[in-house]
């Protein structure tokens, strides 16, 4: 049986890769991809803890399902915003979107 700390290590690595993507990529779509990676790392953490600490209490899986729902909703709205941004400014580089009003 694979011990718990290995799952947590994978989740930590995934979270850090996601954070680096968010902090350092210039393209807005790539930033959203990083956010998805971070949310997946959180999900993996939740399910690993659920399995090892309290496999009979469904709170772990239910919570993960809700995080999944929120991530899906946020990806949809975020990409809609990016597409709208592209339409008005013809650019999706995060450096170019620095004024609140065009």
């Amino acid at each position, binding site marked *: 049986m694979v011990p718990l700390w290995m799952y947590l290590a994978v989740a930590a690595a995934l979270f850090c890769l996601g954070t680096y993507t968010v902090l350092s990529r210039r393209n807005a779509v790539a930033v959203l991809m990083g956010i998805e990676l971070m949310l997946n790392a959180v999900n993996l953490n939740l399910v690993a803890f659920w399995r090892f600490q309290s*496999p009979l209490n469904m*709170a772990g899986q239910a919570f993960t399902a809700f995080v999944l729902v929120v991530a*899906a909703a946020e990806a949809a709205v975020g990409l809609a915003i990016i597409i709208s941004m592209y339409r008005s400014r013809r650019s999706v580089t995060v450096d170019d979107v620095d004024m609140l009003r065009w």
Partner: protein
Amino acid sequence: MVVGGLTPQAIAFGFFTILTLGGAFGVVLNKNLVRGAVWLIVSLFGIAGMFVLLSAPFLAAVQVMVYIGAIGILFTFAVMLTRSMTNMRQRFTTQWWSALIVVGLLFVFLMSGVIVPVWGGISPEQAGDVVATTTDLGVALVDGNQFVLPFEVASLLLTAAIIGAIVIARQHEEE
């Protein structure tokens, strides 16, 4: 069956770890965003495999269906519709080195928290063999004492997100 000291579960874990982290590296480092979307899908598939290893098959199926079948395709569409594609010479912002330092510190901090067992009680090696089934998850989501309220709120959230995304991304004909 033990091959070179590794049980089949360990081999599967290693395989899915390679998929997950390899895909994540692909997302970070790619020059071509469509390939980046494909790497993201690979990484999400690795996570689904880990869910199966952790005895959560329902979550694994939902992960593939929602993330890969819907969000992966959404990302691919977004990449194509915003023409942000091939051969980006400048992938990273100018402050990428400070981001790298911050993330490195974060990783060290998280790993120290992971390896030093701060959660007493059940030793991490022993995962119990009795696991709740998908039926229990279904009951938990509609049981009045458990998670029916977050369930309903989540559906409201999804409705709001659908309507919001459609309104924001609509092309305005008055221009």
